[in-house]
């Protein structure tokens, strides 16, 4: 078929707005632009002439109705039967909504501040309640381990631990590599390159191993927790839990929390090993140290308590990641957008809190 899209035209002459050609979705776009230039008719006896319009669709009818309102409710003349019918169908009164949508109102500054303050307080209250629920959840599991939903927990262990192992090992190996290279280049100048093993080992095991692992897990699992719970919230699954009298903490939070607590130490141990290995690669090649010497230096420097500090940090980060991820999920607003916002903020506030906790624990461990 060879359909030539016939055009529609509009011209204004002696207060008669004359339209010709079919008014359809395809033809009306330029006319809308033209219509924007029309002004009020200042009491002149204007009219709209559609003699030359053979047919119109909903877009055409909308244009005609728009033009009529623009010119102050003037008559539309010469409409064909089809155009008249279309106009009848489309021209329905627009009742004022019984209640104006809230967005139309601009609140004053005092009100904005007040709303903000209540919001902050309410959020704080919710968070306190949530933390209380978490503590109760831990207590319950400590007393009755069977109350934990173990099948769910095992699934989360696989997802947060086993699935993350590869990336954790790779990143921490690279961290060790970079660290050893940077240190080596500097310390070599002072002939102190035998200490590279000590420095790299300590940094990785006390600080960087757990930290990098936590940041990775936060990005992978914290966001996943938030997105999962957020989607459940949007789908009213969380509401269904509530109405079934099932606690959100026990169902949604504790399996994830326990899974992370169980997997984090393993991930940290692997991270430590990978980091030391990365350092060793540089130590034995770039710094020309024999493997035995490098490893000997590392092992001589690092005590059990150093590893313990890293593991304790890892567990603290695990609590932060699970708690923040689940909280953000439960706070999800409406729709798919809300889920995205929750997942993002789970990562951002998760990493922020991880660093804060890191600082606090580092200070405490030094004071001990």
């Amino acid at each position, binding site marked *: 078929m060879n359909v030539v899209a016939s055009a529609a035209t509009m011209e204004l002459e002696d207060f008669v707005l004359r339209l010709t050609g079919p008014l359809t979705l395809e033809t009306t776009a330029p006319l809308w632009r033209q219509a924007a230039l029309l002004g009020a008719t200042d009491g002149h006896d204007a009219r709209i002439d559609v003699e030359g319009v053979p047919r119109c669709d909903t877009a055409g009818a909308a244009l005609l109705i728009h033009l009529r309102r623009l010119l102050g409710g003037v008559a539309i003349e010469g409409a064909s039967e089809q155009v008249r019918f279309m106009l009848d169908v489309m021209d329905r*009164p627009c009742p004022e909504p019984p209640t104006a949508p809230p967005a139309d109102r601009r609140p004053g500054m005092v009100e904005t501040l007040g709303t903000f303050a209540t919001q902050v307080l309410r959020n704080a209250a919710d968070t306190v309640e949530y933390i209380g629920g978490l503590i109760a959840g831990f207590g319950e599991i400590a007393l009755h381990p069977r109350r934990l939903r173990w099948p769910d927990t095992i699934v989360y262990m696989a997802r947060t631990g086993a699935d993350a192992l590869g990336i954790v090992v790779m990143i921490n190996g690279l961290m060790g590599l970079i660290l050893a290279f940077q240190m080596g280049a500097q310390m070599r100048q002072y002939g102190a390159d035998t200490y590279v093993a000590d420095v790299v080992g300590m940094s990785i095991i006390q600080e960087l191993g757990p930290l990098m692992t936590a940041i990775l897990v936060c990005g992978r699992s914290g966001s996943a927790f938030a997105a999962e719970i957020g989607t459940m919230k949007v*789908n009213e*699954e969380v*509401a*269904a839990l*509530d*109405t*079934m*009298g099932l606690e959100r903490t026990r169902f949604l939070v504790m399996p994830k929390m326990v899974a992370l607590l169980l997997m984090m130490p393993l991930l940290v141990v692997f991270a430590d090993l990978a980091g030391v290995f990365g350092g060793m690669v540089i130590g034995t090649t770039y710094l020309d140290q024999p493997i035995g010497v490098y490893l000997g230096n590392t092992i001589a420097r690092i005590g059990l308590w150093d590893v313990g500090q890293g593991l304790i940090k890892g567990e603290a980060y695990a609590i932060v990641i699970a708690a923040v991820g689940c909280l953000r999920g439960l706070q999800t607003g409406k729709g798919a957008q809300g889920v995205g916002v929750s997942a993002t903020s789970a990562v951002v506030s998760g990493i922020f809190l991880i660093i804060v906790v890191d600082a606090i624990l580092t200070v405490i461990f030094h004071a001990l």
Partner: protein
Amino acid sequence: MPSETPPPPEAPAPPATVDAIVRVRGLRAAYGDVTILEDVSFDVKRGEVFVILGGSGCGKSTLLKHLIGLIEPAAGTIELDGTDLTASTPAERRELLRRFGVLFQSGALFSGMTLEQNVALPLQEFTPLPREAISRLAQLKLSLVDLDGYEAYRPDEISGGMQKRAGVARALALDPPIVFFDEPSAGLDPISAAELDQLILDLRDSLGTTMVIVTHELASIYAVADRCIVLDKARQTIVAEGHPATLRDESDDPYVRSFFNREPALAGRGGR
């Protein structure tokens, strides 16, 4: 876990000490500044099928969510079985709610679980039944809504109407003395809808279950409703209460008449 079969968790409702199992007084429902319903008062009697009617968007689901304690009323009181929902602590409320069956308009099945696990969950949590009995019972409830053979499916692997029916099965898991159904027959073919109506009547007659149902299906309203209320979006409140056939034949209210006679609302009342 005990192996002898213990009694079911909730025997049919005890003799009526309170005649109205749901009592709503002066309820105002609002989202933020926007009022949806105002001055809503009604009673649901024990053992009746109570239907909430009204145009799309008039606040039926909103009202239902108030009744099950998901939304706090902006004003007014809701009493369930003699307990004031608004004045109760969260723990009391949970205790109260777990005796109710709820079907959400969206179905709200747990997406991570199979249909059987969905139905079995409340049984696992609130009854001492052995695993095997729970599984049998869950299958039985699913077959009540004609979903035999779909036990191992997940919610996203079945159709919308099937999700609705699975939601009904989950709501009925604990033989609750009162159920709240939001459009149970939406998305169902006429035969399934009729079967669901029959199920509703059977439950009422055999277990004395009280049913609060939101629906648009006129046929099903006449078939099951003992009493109904009609909400109107324009007036934001209850505009009629009574038996549907009586309202259809005798109501003076033009909106109510249009509603039951399935004709466009008369012009001139706040729009079309």
